[in-house]
């Protein structure tokens, strides 16, 4: 027992230097520049960009970087619509062409000495010709966490030295934490679709990590003041991506007019679009780039000392890791559990040693114990559920982070699948019946090749509350539309003219109603991201109900006459029947398996996966 521990300790001691600062989150230093391509100049106003709070913003003195290459291909919707081959626009670029472009960009980046300027942004040279370390020393002090404060309180340097000296070890890391993001945002294009109009834009970005310029063990800054402008300082492209987004006004301004809201002006649209694109970038950055993920040690009761200073929001996701000594003697990080933010601690400013803490709650399974490493690893917040039942079969939900834990908005769909079987009663009664019986003798070609299509679609909100880490309850409310429509051709005749009798395109509903649903889900986590849940809801129709579908008679595609299927044929044409009981009785007899209208008690069981 003792010998093995002794050996372990020897192995461990060799690891100790590597692990020394594994969980110290050094706030990354960030500079922002514009990048111009041959075919696309960047239109971004750097001054208007706000970096998120978990970065230290650096002021780099660089004009637009011009790279002799074409811009990344990311087609906007309006461009795809106009182009001849729309599908080609959806296909992404090949990896090799992306790599080639990134290399060219990196070459230009380095040869234009942008890295050097980034270093000078972190450590500027003062009027006396020497480096002015004050800025980066303050960064070191600012990045100190409660843990750093508490661990150095009994250290003589911590007790008697200045704050800058106390946290000098953090400053030495902060100097090397130097990143540059290059943006290319071409001019926005106008955009319109059926319901809205506005602007559409794309943004490309590239994240560079500047090579280390400071070596704590030997001498400090590698480049002297006289060398910094001319030396070749390298960098690496860590990640690059493109995003598109739109910002629009609704074409139907009637509601807004009633509320007295004006449509957004072009400037407002442009500014909103820029914000949307930026938001996507910051969220993506946090998800993908390792160095940008705030990390710390888990304290008792699932609390951590990150907070508003690191831009945390409710429901941000953290993964929990444990150090395990593997058989080969290496220390590896093993994922243990998943946690989300329940309450954000306000910890702006310098760490005091007992700042306000953020509380996390665990979801799923796995051990969570104090001393483990927590790293913010954001997910998209999208949940996909499939299941069976009268309520819905498919659900897509989106976690609304930042408001209250577990708040989600969802879209529920119940697609009544399969072809609906009509009984003989359908073909023998109503206008259809008349057409069918009279038409066959009059040389009509009767086809009963038409089908009914139905769905329930609702949009709602739910709040997921966890009782243990594996059990949750989610009350929800939603409102939606239930629709059953019929389409297709009933009969045609092409003796003299091209005559057609068919179901109308516009008035084809058999059933159309708006309903509201309220209910409760009970769920059990199967893994940390997948769960199974049972929903029970009470639904009520708010307006609408059964409808009488319209039949249209046209010659050469010109509508000559129309009539309603169930409506009373007496009087002027076939008028629309609106008596709900009458229509209900009709369809109950004519449709073999009537899909359940969303009224009454509904249920379903679903399997949900969140990513």
């Amino acid at each position, binding site marked *: 027992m*003792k010998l093995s*521990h002794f050996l*372990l*300790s020897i192995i*461990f*001691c060799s690891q100790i*230097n590597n*692990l*020394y*600062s*594994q*969980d110290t989150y050094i706030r990354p230093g960030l500079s922002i520049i514009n990048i111009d391509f041959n075919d696309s100049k960047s239109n971004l106003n750097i001054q208007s960009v706000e970096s998120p709070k978990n970065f230290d913003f650096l002021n780099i003195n660089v004009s637009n970087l011009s790279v002799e290459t074409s811009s990344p291909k990311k087609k906007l919707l309006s461009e795809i619509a106009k182009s001849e081959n729309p599908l080609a626009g959806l296909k992404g670029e090949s990896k090799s062409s992306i790599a080639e472009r990134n290399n060219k960009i990196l070459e230009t980046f380095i040869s234009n000495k942008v890295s050097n300027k980034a270093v000078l942004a972190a450590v500027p040279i003062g009027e006396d010709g020497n480096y002015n370390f004050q800025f980066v020393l303050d960064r070191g002090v600012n990045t100190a966490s409660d*843990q750093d404060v*508490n*661990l*150095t*309180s*009994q*250290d*003589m*340097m*911590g*007790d*008697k030295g200045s704050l800058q000296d106390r946290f000098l070890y953090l400053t030495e890391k902060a100097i090397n934490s130097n990143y540059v993001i290059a943006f290319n945002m071409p001019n926005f294009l106008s955009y319109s679709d059926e319901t809205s109009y506005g602007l559409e834009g794309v943004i490309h970005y590239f994240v560079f990590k500047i090579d280390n310029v400071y070596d704590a063990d030997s001498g400090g800054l590698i480049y002297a003041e006289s060398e910094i402008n001319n030396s070749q300082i390298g960098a690496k492209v860590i990640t690059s991506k493109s995003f598109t987004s739109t910002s629009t006004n609704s074409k139907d301004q009637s509601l807004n007019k009633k509320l007295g809201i004006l449509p957004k002006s072009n400037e407002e649209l442009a500014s909103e679009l820029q914000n949307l694109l930026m938001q996507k970038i910051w969220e993506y950055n946090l998800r993908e780039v390792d160095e940008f993920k705030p990390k*710390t*040690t*888990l*304290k008792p009761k699932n609390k951590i000392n990150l907070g508003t200073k690191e831009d945390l929001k409710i429901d941000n996701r953290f993964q929990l*890791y*444990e*150090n*395990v*000594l593997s058989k080969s003697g290496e*220390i590896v990080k093993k994922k243990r559990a998943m946690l989300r933010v329940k309450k954000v601690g306000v910890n702006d400013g310098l760490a005091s040693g007992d700042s306000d803490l953020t509380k996390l709650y665990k979801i799923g399974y796995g051990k969570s*114990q*104090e*001393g*483990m*490493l927590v790293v913010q690893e954001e997910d998209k917040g999208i949940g996909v559920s499939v299941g069976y039942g009268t309520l819905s079969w498919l659900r897509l939900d989106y976690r609304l982070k930042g408001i209250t834990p577990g708040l989600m908005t969802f879209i529920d769909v119940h697609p009544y699948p399969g072809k609906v079987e009509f009984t003989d009663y359908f073909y023998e009664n109503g206008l259809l019946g008349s057409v069918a019986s009279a038409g066959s003798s009059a040389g009509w070609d009767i086809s009963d090749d038409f089908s009914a299509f139905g769905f329930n679609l609702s949009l709602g909100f739910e709040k997921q509350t966890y009782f243990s880490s594996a059990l949750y309850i989610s009350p929800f409310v939603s409102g939606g539309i239930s629709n059953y429509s019929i389409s297709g051709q009933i009969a045609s005749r092409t003796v003299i003219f091209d005559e057609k009798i068919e179901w109308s395109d516009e008035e084809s509903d058999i059933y159309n109603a708006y309903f509201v649903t309220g209910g409760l889900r009970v769920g059990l986590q199967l893994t940390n991201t997948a769960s199974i849940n049972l929903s029970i809801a009470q639904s009520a129709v708010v307006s609408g109900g059964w409808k009488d579908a319209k039949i249209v008679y046209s010659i050469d595609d010109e509508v000559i006459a129309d009539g309603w299927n169930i409506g009373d044929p007496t009087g002027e044409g076939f008028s629309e029947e609106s008596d709900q009981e009458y229509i209900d009785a009709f369809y109950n007899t004519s449709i073999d398996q009537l899909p359940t209208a969303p009224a009454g008690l509904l249920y379903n069981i679903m399997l949900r996966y969140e990513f």
Partner: protein
Amino acid sequence: MKTKLILLSFLMCGLLFFQSCSSSKPATSYNYELSCNGVGVEGVYLVKCYSYGSTFEKARQNVKKDAVHGVLFKGVSANSIKKCKAQSKICNVTYAENKEWFDNFFSSGQYLQYVTLSNDGNVSSSDRIKIKGGYKVGFTVSVKSDELRKRMEKEGFAKKMNVFDN
């Protein structure tokens, strides 16, 4: 009677066997690592102590004891990253020579007045390692070295530093 004796001897063997298998760490164990973690304030050694335990909590409980034990009998090793020097052990006697006194010192909790866990007893995640059979955890501990030394000098376990009567 014979069977009773046989049964009794089996029972004794069993008890002895189980006792030797006991996994609780005796207080005299040297199973920990102690190194300096900076130059402590006046009167204090600021050390990093890595202790073992079958659970995380047990390891944390062992740390204070181990730190005091180390400062007394093992000494504190240097740390080149933190730029602090090794400190020699305080006692010039061994634990075994004064087993009874030291057993009492540790078991009665007297040692607790000379040691505190820095950082509210929170551990940094890189210092928490799951190993076979338990955990190895490193805590930063401040040991009141001056007071501990005075106590040891009073008990005669350490040579007085500034008094020269033999």
